[in-house]
């Protein structure tokens, strides 16, 4: 049974970069709650602050002001936090160190766990993680990251999550660098994480189609603020903020009128 306290709760979280004339308010007063086991998507154009928010959730950035809680408490110790909250990043090629084999890097992930499992158990969990993304361990035996395709590399990132089995996953643009036909696979594995491991997942993406398909709830972000939130159908059918209306209107959809000629 998922616990009562929300996984993440934000109260007027602000994060700024630079100072004086060059001050940038990347996240500008954001408040929300994300419950345990929920899949939430944060959707917005480039530069709307969604990646900064993702890094705040990951504990990589501290909020400049406001309160950001994980399971009811501030994120004080990063290592503890990463024990339970892990991430998948956007560019599979720059995610892995080219000088170590993939298997070595997957095993290195266990370095973060407080009660570090035994060597053999780590190997088993890595194998299980690889199988979970339909990759036979022998296929990547001794292989280096530059020997695999973009789609396969993205799967390695997911294999790492299946192996580590964290409580929460922050997926920052997980499919934007991947070809359309492979994208569906990645989504299947992400859904598998929720179904099999009841993991809480936060999606950060500019692709509203992806967000609509995968998430229980949607946040639309624009210039550091959340302008719309709700279930996918609410947000798509009954958008409240003009920004969302324009965003939906600008997306070329097959069945919808786009530009009159």
């Amino acid at each position, binding site marked *: 049974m998922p616990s009562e306290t929300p996984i993440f709760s934000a109260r007027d979280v602000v994060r700024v970069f630079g100072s004086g004339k060059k001050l940038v308010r990347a996240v500008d007063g954001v408040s929300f709650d994300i419950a345990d086991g929920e899949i939430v998507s944060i959707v917005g154009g480039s530069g709307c602050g969604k990646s900064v928010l993702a890094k705040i959730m990951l504990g990589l950035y501290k909020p400049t002001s406001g309160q950001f809680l994980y399971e009811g408490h501030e994120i004080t110790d990063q290592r503890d936090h990463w024990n339970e909250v892990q991430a998948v990043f956007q560019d599979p090629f720059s995610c892995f160190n080219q000088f170590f084999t993939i298997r070595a890097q997957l095993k290195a992930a266990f370095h973060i766990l407080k009660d570090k499992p035994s060597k053999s158990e780590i190997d088993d969990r890595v194998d299980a993680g690889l199988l979970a993304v339909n990759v036979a361990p022998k296929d990547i035996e001794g292989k280096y990251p530059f020997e695999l395709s973009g789609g396969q590399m993205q799967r390695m990132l997911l294999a790492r999550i299946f192996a580590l089995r964290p409580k929460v996953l922050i997926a920052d643009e997980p499919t934007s660098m991947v070809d359309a036909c492979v994208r569906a696979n990645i989504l299947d594995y992400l859904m598998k994480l929720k179904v099999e491991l009841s993991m809480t997942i936060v999606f950060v993406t500019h692709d509203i189609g992806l967000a609509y398909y995968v998430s229980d709830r949607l946040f639309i972000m624009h210039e550091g603020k959340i302008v719309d939130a709700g279930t996918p159908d609410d947000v798509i059918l009954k958008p409240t903020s003009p920004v969302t209306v324009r965003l939906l209107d600008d997306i070329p959809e097959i*069945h919808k009128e786009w530009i009159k000629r």
Partner: protein
Amino acid sequence: MSEPTFEVDHLSLHYLTRFGEKIHAVTDVSFEMKQGEILGIAGESGCGKSTLVNGLMGLFIPPLHPTSGDVKVGGESLMNRTPQDIREHVLSRKVSMIPQGAFNALNPTRKVKDIAADVIVAHEKGDRKKAYDRLGERFELFFGAEAKRILNAYPVQLTAGERQRSVIGISTLLNPEMVIADEPTSALDVSTQKIVIKMIFDLLDAGIFKSMIFITHELPLLRHVADNIAIMYAGEFVEKGTAEQIVFSPKHPYTKALMGAMLSAEPGQKSRKPVAIEGAPPSLAEAIVGCRFAARCPVARPECRQNKQELRMFADRLVRCDYAE
């Protein structure tokens, strides 16, 4: 009906690599285009789209070589002509190109108006002064009051949308017959993309250029932009028909797979589960027997791997699959 502005007749292109390998990047592509028509070309990365672009512009610069076939613009062939001849008489005048990443397609240390003037001066006699007036008028056509600011700005001072529209303005300065747009809006966010596409429609309707080939992997975008769509796979057209046919009733297994893998935020789409296509396109170095999609095709039969598939008329569009239904 006016004779076709652009004809491609069984065009095949190959790369000669340093190690003597011959890679057949484009095989047996044929199509015709009429005045005011937009042809969309869609396909995965590495299917030969960009190679085709160079071929359609007559830019056969080693290691790219034409194997066979012909490309005609307004009746004038682009085959076996010297690069200088192509540069002087074809580029920007007959066939023009809009590159993919517009944000660094403009020379960072030069004002937009100077780059534009360079194009005019390179192709037409007359001094730069006249060129500046002419491009001033043209830019006012689609930038209105903003034209002066944009023309006198350096690329670094413009937004991505302004840069992309300036590139389109520059590429169509000499009213080319054919404009080839290679993923012109893939790097832009949605609202800027809409403004850019609107500009393209206005230019086409105003007859600034006669026809366009629009290359992208986003089928929903092509649905609204292109009149006809050709789906490209491993260097070949596998299906070609009107936008509605391709999007709403795809026949070739690969087109069906592409449409199936698409995600759209439309009501009722939530239940439709996207289907992925396993594997990757075949390497084009060795000659391939039978259908190139056979390895990944969900409805492949043993015969598919033996006999070569020809583009044939089926359900009033061209399909390269004997068993499409």
